[in-house]
């Protein structure tokens, strides 16, 4: 059977009807993109009476053969530079291109066509909303196998394919978005579980000591009463800090954090944060705070310091020492919070500042929301400073915050 006979057997009106039928097929089919492309390519081959058809999709500077029907020189996945070939010309000109005789047409590689036995071809661009997505091409081993009517059919099929591709791309984008939302949802769920534990633990402390003070006040020494009252305060501050962090995470995610720069006496701010922490019996804090002023938002900076010291208190053993130092330099000031606890695992040095992350050492063991250090990092970032952690010589973690500051010695 020759192609001419086959083509002749399908009158033009019937061919358009076939295109409409194909359109209906695809319109109601489920979106398995590869089968749609296979069907369209095969239909295009049949309707044009071609020996082969190829659907090539644009990927960067290349055209990639994505669906192949009949006997075509290209195999699936094969890449051709847009700059070469008749397909490339169709992409560049955004117009259908027809080659009636590969032997005499300068636009095609005659040697290559001879090698694969192609004499004539037609290539039309896949256009959707003015963008070229690829090319639908039919090939024949006979010269002048394709007519203007064939090109019209091919254009209809290409338009159809372009619309399906656009729909599939939209669908894929929506699926990606849904997956991202689901991930966020899971993250928030895990975060809420951690947050509720973080709240419950200090609340249990508050309630426990309050009940103890009430029921045993007569038997307790003044020292113990003071210790237990201190425990209540420290637990209540923990709750307060957690709530502040939760609100900040929400405000950060909505982009609602405002930075107000003003001269801040950093040593006084650090001192006031230290005074607000109850270290627990046995833990020591050594502060070395020379007077230094920075331009910063005092509320945000306070939260940075608070989270760093809170972190040191939370993750060091009961008999640990915590050092807090200010190190003014010429164009910057460094706040260093160190401890002689267990230090930071090498893998966590970067990760520790990411949201909802905590040291891998703690995973599933010591619960926590993992937002404190993330917030500290974000707040340092808005001050155009830097934050990092290293392991201290002699064991323990060493957190550094460097603020680009107009250091100004004050008495």
């Amino acid at each position: 059977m020759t192609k001419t006979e086959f083509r002749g057997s399908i009158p033009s009106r019937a061919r358009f009807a076939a295109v409409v039928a194909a359109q209906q097929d695809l319109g109601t089919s489920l979106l398995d993109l590869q089968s749609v492309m296979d069907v369209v390519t095969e239909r295009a081959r049949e309707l044009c009476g071609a020996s082969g058809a190829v659907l090539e999709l644009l990927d960067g500077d290349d055209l990639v053969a994505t669906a192949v029907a009949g006997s075509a020189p290209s195999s699936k996945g094969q890449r051709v530079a847009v700059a070469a070939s008749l397909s490339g010309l169709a992409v560049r000109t955004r117009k259908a291109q027809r080659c009636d005789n590969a032997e005499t047409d300068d636009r095609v590689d005659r040697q290559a066509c001879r090698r694969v036995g192609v004499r004539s071809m037609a290539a039309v661009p896949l256009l959707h909303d003015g963008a070229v997505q690829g090319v639908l091409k039919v090939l024949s081993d006979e010269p002048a196998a394709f007519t203007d009517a064939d090109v019209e059919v091919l254009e209809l099929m290409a338009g159809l394919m372009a619309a399906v591709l656009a729909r599939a791309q939209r669908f894929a984008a929506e699926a990606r978005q849904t997956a991202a939302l689901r991930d966020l949802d899971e993250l928030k769920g895990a975060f809420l579980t951690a947050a509720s534990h973080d709240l419950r633990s200090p609340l249990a402390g508050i309630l426990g000591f309050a009940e103890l003070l009430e029921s045993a006040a007569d038997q307790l020494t003044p020292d113990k009463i003071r210790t237990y009252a201190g425990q209540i305060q420290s637990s209540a501050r923990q709750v307060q800090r957690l709530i502040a962090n939760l609100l900040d995470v929400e405000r950060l995610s909505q982009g609602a954090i405002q930075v107000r720069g003003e001269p801040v006496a950093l040593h006084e701010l650090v001192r006031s944060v230290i005074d607000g922490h109850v270290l627990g019996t046995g833990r020591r804090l050594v502060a070395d705070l020379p007077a230094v002023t920075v331009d910063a938002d005092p509320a945000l900076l306070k939260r940075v310091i608070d989270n760093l010291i809170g972190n040191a208190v939370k993750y060091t053993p009961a008999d640990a020492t915590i050092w807090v130092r200010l190190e003014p330099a010429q164009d910057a000031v460094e706040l260093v919070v160190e401890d002689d606890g267990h230090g930071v695992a090498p893998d966590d040095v970067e990760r520790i500042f990411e949201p909802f992350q905590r040291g891998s050492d703690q995973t599933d063991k010591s619960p926590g929301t993992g937002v404190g250090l993330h917030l500290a990092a974000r707040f340092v970032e808005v001050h155009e400073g830097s934050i990092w952690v290293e392991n201290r010589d002699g064991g323990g973690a060493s957190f550094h915050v460097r603020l680009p500051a107009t250091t100004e010695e004050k008495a």
Partner: protein
Amino acid sequence: MTSNDATILVAEDDPGHAMLIEEAFAAAQLANPLKIVADGEETTDYLSGSGQYADRSAHPVPVLVLLDIHMPRKSGLDVLEWMRQQPELKRIPVIMLTSSEDDRDIDRAYELGANSYLIKPVGFDALLDVVRTLGLYWLVISRLPSVDPP
């Protein structure tokens, strides 16, 4: 009757909670010496008598262990699993005392050989009730295994 030198080891990372447990033992008039350790590694150090716990007269092998689950460095479940593999420690009764109500934690704890799983109550009076009951059951009614120092 409780023995005065039958030490109880309490692994609890929250110093406030540890203090409350101590007060509850005192209020329940349980005279057993309590030893508090603050993380999982300290717990295994104590139990194996290594490092700062090498002196067994000051840090005797406990007759009972109260284990929190969520602790830094080694979880209570890790400690339990390790304990059950130590010939000298594997028969010591272990009571999980934790705020985790997660079924997976509960199941895992019993699989690993926990003798009891108690949810840490909120409030001192409720804690006192639990400690009284625990003391009565484990230190008065129950016969405990003998202890061999490792």
